[in-house]
């Protein structure tokens, strides 16, 4: 997260700061996810054209592919766990080819895997190509309550700071305990979390004070107008929406197959 690697949200360019309006990206992300999830559970091939979206954004915006893939893989286990029940429960043979019988469960399992890859990639691409403050600004302009937006900003700001505190605690515990990988007992975990909580409460008090001395009156003001540029953001939205709708209505892989074989 905030520490290692390519600092995407700081790279100047089409998709980062000063790039496509975050509102456009949020809209396109939702449109994408709606189309992905709208396909039937046995659909595989028609999901494939949708990969163009994460792939092309990744390509244009310098998201490191390895990092993206790692994130995507981390999200897979739960989905695969649930998905693996499909072959178990859905044994109806959907088709036979070359002496091979494939059940509906296996097809829907592959479909779930594809959906998962697409959905996670979309989320990661959105997060990696949008500076968080601009994303928050966009969300506010899209009608998300101010208090939740401010909350997201504060949470994001102090995330790594408090995580480092926790890591230091765990390390200190490991140094005191015996064994190579000492386990934390519930009771000591509770007191560690308790300490962490007290420190967090102190931190909140100090932040509040530093807000007060700078004239805080209950409202967090931001001075950064977002400009929705139709020539850029409008085209971005229009292009992808059109693409997603086409993919939804037209069997692109089927057409492609037919075209290649001259049928």
């Amino acid at each position: 997260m905030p520490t290692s690697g390519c600092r995407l949200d700081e790279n100047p360019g089409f998709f980062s700061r000063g790039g496509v309006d975050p509102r456009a990206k949020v809209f396109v992300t939702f449109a994408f996810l709606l189309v992905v999830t709208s396909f039937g559970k046995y659909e595989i091939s028609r999901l494939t054209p949708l990969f163009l979206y994460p792939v092309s954004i990744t390509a244009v915006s310098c998201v490191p592919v390895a990092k993206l893939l790692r994130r995507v893989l981390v999200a897979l286990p739960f989905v695969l766990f649930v998905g693996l029940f499909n072959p178990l429960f859905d044994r109806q043979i959907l088709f036979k080819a070359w002496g091979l019988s494939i059940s509906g469960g296996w097809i829907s399992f592959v479909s779930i895997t594809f959906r998962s890859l697409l959905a996670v990639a979309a989320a990661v691409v959105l997060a990696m190509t949008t500076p968080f403050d601009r994303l928050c600004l966009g969300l506010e302009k899209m009608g998300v309550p101010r208090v939740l937006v401010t909350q997201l900003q504060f949470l994001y700001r102090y995330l790594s700071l408090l995580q480092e505190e926790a890591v230091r605690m765990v390390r200190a515990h490991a140094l005191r305990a015996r064994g190579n990988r000492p386990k934390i007992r519930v009771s000591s975990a509770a007191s560690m979390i308790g300490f962490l909580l007290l420190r967090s409460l102190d931190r909140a008090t100090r932040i509040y004070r530093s807000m007060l001395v700078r004239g805080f009156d209950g409202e967090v003001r931001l001075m950064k107008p977002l400009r929705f540029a139709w020539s850029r953001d409008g085209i971005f939205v229009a292009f992808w929406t059109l693409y997603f709708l086409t993919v939804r209505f037209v069997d692109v892989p089927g057409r492609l197959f037919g075209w290649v074989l001259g049928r």
Partner: protein
Amino acid sequence: MHMADALLSPAVGGTMLAVTAGLTAYSARKLKESPDESRIPLMGVLGAFIFAAQMINFSIPATGSSGHLGGGMILAILLGPYAAFLVLASVLVVQALFFADGGILALGCNIFNMAFFPCFVAYPFIYRKIVGDSPSRKKILLGAILSAVAGLQLGAFSVVLETVASGISELPFRTFLLLMQPIHLAIGIVEGIVTGAVVTFVWKARPEVLESAAQNTPLPGVSLRKVLAGLAVAAIFTGGALSWFASTYPDGLEWSMAKTAGTEELEAPAERVHTALAALQEKLAFLPDYGFRPSPAGKDSQPEVAAAGENEGKWPAVDPATTVSGLVGGALTLTLAGGLGILLRGAVSRRK
């Protein structure tokens, strides 16, 4: 357990997003009614605290496995339901974006499952009822365990409902329920014990912290209870019912249950049913779709504008040729998408 986009139908995802948006607006309005400036940094830092606390992995006695805090109940106890709901919502948004937990479309489900139940059900009706205005160590522990268990059971149940209503996973309702509820009972007990211990710890070190939270949330009266219970029931039902109606085939709850019971052999699984889009397309029929159009391998007699139900029923009887075209076409598309990506990246890096 996070609900994932991949297991979700648009109807269920959309409904839950709408429900969650309503709850968020409601909580935001409630907070405005009792303004407290110091709450803004407090909520923010406590949201980050949840992430930090989750980095402390402890061993769960007698199982050999390890776990970490969920944190929903701790936030409810420290902040009261409205602020806690918003903090948990923000935590889940960040998890969906940066840690790929769940998904963006599934955010509505996840916020509902993991924030609504602890904040608006377990905290007011269980924890506050048990602990009341005169906390003691025992009461805190009991209240924390019971409310954590209840919150997680409801959340797990909700995951099952959402999954089954979506109809992507084949896990039958009963099997899934039997998988989820006992696991979450265990998780709930551990969560409750840790929550109780942490709250007791804070209560001893800084009693005033808990007092101020309790003052912000008076014990729920009947009206609040009615509102919340009604809201919960409405949410569950609209979520279930809407997706039910959205599917033109009984693939929801009933179907799964029937299948588990083994009483009914269904001729056709339901697919491409969630989509109003698909229905629209069939009506318009100017963008033929390969499942419906005369297939290359000779089943050309099938009329293009057949009734949707019939087509749905026939789809599983896919002939190999169509499948091959699907597979090869899919592979072609993927290759094309990948190639385009490489080209684009090349173009971008050359420009730099």
